[in-house]
């Protein structure tokens, strides 16, 4: 056994994402300790944190799986042994602890199986596997089941040894799905703009530096279409610039290069795909009881805003590419170049707001919302403010992977909370007063953040170095 190599591999997540791993580790240990006091709350919490830990491990795994790593002697075996080590800590140890506390073997086995499933799901999310999308469909599907089936399932969960076994088998299947493509040496897919939207088949986790991008069936089919629209848009923009040179035409060409798929046709295709997926999802959950329309409608902002995860990553990843743009644009000062980049990205505010409104209309229609205008208006107000805020945060925010993830999470949660706040204001004080209050809350914040970030960005010297992470 190559203990040194296993040690290095096991430590890698802590080296790459020290803050995230330590935080997750502390919360995990804390919730584990709480099991004797209140295991009904602590056990699901342990599972959730395990899922998060799995996600961080998946992100590390994805950056690790390069052709040169796969060719290291005995790599697959050492990786397997490292996996076993993590399994001992994350799966076996909590189950033994529970058995020690309760003396209930059934419960302990169930916990081990659920922990395994949580790790597998986390790994799937972290490595960017699209199968995780289906997890979100499971919950509403469970809600659709009749009460009798619910009762039978609950009984089986607490008494049958088949349930842990089935969960473990499901996890094993999932792990096979995750690991097989990662352990296979394959051709690298051609690159896209690092700032491109996630709606066309990629997730931010896939966009780690130097990593081949995984695309699902829809993504693979859409890519040539989106590329063709990008090419046509670029040709048109260049032709316009040649015909009538000017600041607007110039900016249009720069945007066509930096945000190639954010042209009218590209946006329409992305909206169409998201509409189809969201339509299916909301049709399913529509039958669930006790749903909060406002909360679900805030998903419109969540989906729209998810675009900025790619922007944060792209801002760093694109640095070397910007050297060529810098020489081409030949700005008078560094600040002029920075202003060009910042202003080019402003298009994202319009695109994101448009997407938020469209998705909001879609949700209002699918859920037969009682006050659709309120939902759409809220999406418009919050979409503008949150987009400005998100662009500002990613323009001058942290450049580390963990930092970017934390910022994006804070932005998404913040945007959803503000969406619900503005919606509540409209319910409480009427559309006009509530809407105005929403504007007062969102726009000064968004515009202020944007202006500050732009000013700060302009003082920074452009950086053309390749990112290290």
């Amino acid at each position, binding site marked *: 056994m190559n203990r040194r190599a296993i040690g290095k591999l096991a430590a890698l997540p802590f080296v790459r994402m020290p803050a995230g791993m330590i935080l997750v580790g502390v919360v995990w240990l804390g919730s584990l300790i709480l099991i004797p006091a209140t295991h009904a709350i602590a056990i699901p919490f342990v599972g959730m944190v395990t899922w998060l830990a799995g996600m961080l491990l998946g992100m590390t795994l994805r950056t690790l799986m390069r052709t040169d790593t796969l060719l290291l002697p005995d790599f697959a075996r050492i990786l397997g042994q490292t996996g076993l080590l993590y399994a001992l800590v994350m799966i076996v140890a909590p189950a033994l602890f529970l058995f020690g506390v309760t003396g209930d073997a059934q419960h302990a086995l169930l916990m081990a199986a659920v922990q395994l499933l949580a790790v597998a799901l986390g790994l799937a999310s972290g490595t960017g596997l699209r199968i995780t999308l289906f997890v979100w469909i499971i919950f509403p599907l469970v809600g659709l089941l009749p009460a009798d089936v619910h009762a039978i399932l609950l009984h089986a969960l607490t008494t049958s040894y088949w349930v842990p076994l089935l969960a473990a088998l499901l996890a094993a299947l999932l792990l096979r799905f995750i690991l097989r493509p990662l352990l296979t040496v394959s051709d690298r897919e051609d690159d896209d703009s690092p700032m491109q939207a996630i709606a066309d088949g990629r997730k931010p986790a896939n966009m780690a530096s130097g990593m081949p991008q995984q695309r699902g069936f829809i993504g693979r089919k859409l890519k040539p279409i989106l590329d063709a629209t990008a090419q046509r848009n670029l040709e048109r923009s260049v032709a316009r610039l040649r015909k009538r040179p000017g600041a607007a035409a110039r900016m249009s060409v720069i945007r066509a290069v930096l945000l190639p798929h954010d042209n009218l046709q590209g946006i329409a295709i992305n909206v169409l795909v998201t509409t189809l997926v969201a339509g299916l999802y909301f049709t399913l959950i529509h039958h669930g009881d006790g749903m909060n329309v406002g909360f679900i409608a805030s998903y419109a902002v969540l989906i729209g805003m998810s675009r900025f995860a790619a922007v944060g990553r792209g801002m760093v990843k694109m640095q070397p590419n910007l050297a060529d743009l810098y020489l081409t644009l*030949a700005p008078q000062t560094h600040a002029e170049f920075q202003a060009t980049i910042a202003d080019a990205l402003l298009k994202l505010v319009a695109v994101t707001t448009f997407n938020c409104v469209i998705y909001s209309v879609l949700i209002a229609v699918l859920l037969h919302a009682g006050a659709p205008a309120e939902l759409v208006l809220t999406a418009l107000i919050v979409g503008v403010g949150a987009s400005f805020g998100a662009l500002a945060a990613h323009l001058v925010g942290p450049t580390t992977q963990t930092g970017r993830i934390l910022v994006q999470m804070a932005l998404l949660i913040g945007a959803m909370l503000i969406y619900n706040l503005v919606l509540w204001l409209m319910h409480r004080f009427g559309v006009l007063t509530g809407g105005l209050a929403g504007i007062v809350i969102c726009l000064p914040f968004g515009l202020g953040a944007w202006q500050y970030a732009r000013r700060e960005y302009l003082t920074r010297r452009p950086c053309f170095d390749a990112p290290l992470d």
Partner: protein
Amino acid sequence: MAAADGITQTQAIVDVRGLRKRFDQRDVLSHLDWRIPGGRVIGLLGRNGAGKTTLLRCMAGLSPIDEGSIAILGHSVDQPGGKRLQHIGFVPQTFDLFPWMKVRGYLDFTAAFYPRWNHVQTERLLDDWQIDRKQKVGQLSQGQRQKLAIIRALAPDPDLLLLDEPVASLDPQARRAFMDELMRIVQRPGKTVVFSTHITADLERAGADIALLKDGRIVLESDLPALRQRIRRVVLMRADGWQTAPLETGVLRATLDGTQAQLIVDGVGDDVLAAIAEREHARLDVQPLTLEDLFVELA
């Protein structure tokens, strides 16, 4: 624009003074001074990690400097300085062009921003170097990407070309074609080329002047014939063999092997060498060094 804003061939196209560049508290370039007059081809030599890429990136204004000053075409690179930047052609060591763009789209986009763009030359090179205009930049091989970077750098007819190992990924045919193209360019008045390379044969073919970067400074500048005249291999042979080197001053390296004393000498005249041979009762053989030998001895 003739040689960029009135800079004549006698004036320095590149003027680097007291340049210091640090990475993580480590000096990569230190108190570096370098003046390059117009109309020259300079081969920048140095071992791996000597700082060639850093120096070229600093000169192009792509990397901030810690101390000193760099003036290109008569203007400081502290700020890009507008259109002046378009008179610099830069081929980076890594090909950070836009990989998601198609070759045609990329060149059209770039051309749209330049007041002068040699479309005829660009099309000819794309054909000669067999680059598919419909392919994405990211789908090109390393060598093809390097060719594209060279085509892009040459197209605006720049007054100063900074090339960071431009032929590293090229096959021998493409390398020769590139060197021919480079020769054609430098024959035009006022064109200056600085290129780093490890392929010394190319420098010899181009008749380039040599600048050697070592310990963070330019430690040697010379044209090739003068360098060859200065640094030579001297072989002294005698039947008694050698206990000590017959000469110390001006010797870069001495190897004593049986009847032979092999010396690499710098700036030691023929008369001095003849006198030593006579004094030591040895047979003298003076041999010129190839540029590669020179590089090994000096770098």
